[in-house]
């Protein structure tokens, strides 16, 4: 932390100066929100690191949207803190330049054109109107810019919301289910866009229940269920913690199984048509064992555990 960092409990730091180490970082600590008797979010802690796409996963009603809205200062937390670059969202002088957000489908006034909607936002963020044309072109809405947004499709509304989020050229993007309503082309485009956005050293926090989409985009993962954090870390760490297995089709399954057990690979199951499933090893290891035992191998494939299965195991409360 830089010398400017506010000391907790010490004298209040008046400036909105951001400690250098916090650029692009979101820090959520002990965050909780009660709506009446309902605990929407409970004791949630995680960080979003600059230069990465963080996937925010959870089933419907798990508290994802509430958490994102607390980060953005739209919902006041009951407990804990959500800090954007070290300070609460509302303490930023010009929040639109720090963080851009795509929340629920939130186009604009149905009678207002997309261009007018973006120009109003551009005025508030203090960026020139030329920036409006840039973001319109970026999301592919230039031709529809003078149409009232009331006639927009779900996908067009999502593109408009993304355009608005990008107006201030923010260091952080927060997206709540951005894939909703996008066609496959749009989803592929968004995936590439988010990856390049993060590769430029900025950060992305994207929520989804589309697990496969997150798996392809995110490097880090936060999984919540019933308002509680189930996992927070690199997606690779989650994958490595899962025991994958190798499917192998040897000339002599029984002989290979014997050889594998002798090598300490005891979880060997015979599956259909002379295939063996070997847990706790990769293809190289199995191939070496087969070669040493002098058994011909006709086919071999590594079976990866998909994020979906990991996700379901997480939600079932299993340890990962």
């Amino acid at each position, binding site marked *: 932390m830089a010398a400017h960092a506010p000391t907790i409990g010490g004298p209040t730091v008046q400036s*909105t100066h951001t400690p250098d180490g916090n650029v692009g970082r979101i820090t959520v600590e002990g965050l909780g929100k009660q709506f009446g008797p309902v605990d929407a979010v409970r004791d949630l802690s995680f960080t979003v690191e600059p230069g990465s796409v963080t996937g925010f996963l959870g089933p419907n009603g798990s508290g994802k949207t509430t958490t994102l809205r607390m980060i953005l200062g739209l919902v006041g937390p009951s407990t804990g803190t959500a800090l954007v670059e070290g300070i609460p969202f509302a303490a930023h*002088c*010009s929040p639109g330049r720090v*963080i851009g957000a795509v929340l629920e489908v939130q186009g604009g006034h149905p009678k207002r054109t997309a261009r007018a909607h973006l120009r109003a936002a551009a*005025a508030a963020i203090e960026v020139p109107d030329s920036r409006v044309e840039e973001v319109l072109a970026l999301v592919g809405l230039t031709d529809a810019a003078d149409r009232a947004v009331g006639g927009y499709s779900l996908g067009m509304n999502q593109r408009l919301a993304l355009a608005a989020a990008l107006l201030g050229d923010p260091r952080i993007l927060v997206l709540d289910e951005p894939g909703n309503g996008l066609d496959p082309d749009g989803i592929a485009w968004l995936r590439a866009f988010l990856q390049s956005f993060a590769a430029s050293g900025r950060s992305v926090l994207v929520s989804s229940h589309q697990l496969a989409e997150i798996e392809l985009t995110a490097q880090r993962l936060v999984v919540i269920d019933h308002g509680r954090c189930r996992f927070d870390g690199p997606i690779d760490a989650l994958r490595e913690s899962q025991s994958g297995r190798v499917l192998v089709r040897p000339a002599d399954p029984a002989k290979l199984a014997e050889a594998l057990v002798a090598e300490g690979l005891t979880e060997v199951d015979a599956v259909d048509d002379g295939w063996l499933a070997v847990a706790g090893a990769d293809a190289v290891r199995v191939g070496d064992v087969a070669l040493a035992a002098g058994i011909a191998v006709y086919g071999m494939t590594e079976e990866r555990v998909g994020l979906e299965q990991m996700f379901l195991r997480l939600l079932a409360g299993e340890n990962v």
Partner: protein
Amino acid sequence: MSTAEVPGPGLLARIGPGHRWRAVLRSEVRKTTSVRMYWLLLIPIVVLALAMSLFGSLITLLVPGATETSPVLLLAGLASTLSAVSIVGGAFGALASSGEYRHRTVTQAFLTGSRGQVLGSKVVVAAGVAAAYGLLTALLGPLLGGAVLGGQTLPGAGELLSLGLVGMLVCALWGVLGVAVGTLVPNQAGAVALVVGYSLVGENVLAGVMRVGDDNGSVFARLTSFLPGNAGDIALYESPVNAAGQGADGTQILEFLAGVSSPPPGWVALLVLLAWTAAAVALAAVVGGRRDIT
């Protein structure tokens, strides 16, 4: 770690620099001019101005010897038109602020400016638009009235100017009151119904109850002058009553027109309306500042 332990920014930092307020205001102006609402509300205003002018001049034409009083009638007609237009101004403010919740654009607004800045810019824009409604009425009323009256005696320029200025002020304050109500009651239909319904019916009922069985003596009856709608009416009707120059009778005419007992001077009435407006905006700032946008 609890919320209280995080060092919050000082008051000055929370208010933010002036350029941010101007930026959010510019955004609000662009939002206002990019939808039709502000000029669609001109339709009831023109209709009101026409109706009042015709009504006033019809009396002048029907009543024998009314030509001498026509300036008073025109001023009275204009004052009552301005009173009605101030309700339209209030409706504009309520529509503008509650519309942000209805169309969920409030999220975008709060992501690009602080809540104080958003409320402040709405206050300024609503005051400006409602004052423009008042100005239009003040210009249109005498023109239409004069056209119908032909060569009749028109009120003096000074009387028209002062009534026009008071009218613009009353309209502006009602526009701001509307913004506060629309922030406190984010349901758009509810907010507009509250502003219009209170102005047209609610306050009359309230004043009636306060004055019941009373000959202007009780505290409650005197308090009727301090209701926001009546306060605005007192300020507006002071000009025609003064023009009539009836002395003590003038006070009774004013009491009749504004529906109050023992009215204070017009400038006090304006301050009363200002106080109501300031209180409503302060309440809206607190409630709107804490509201969860889900």
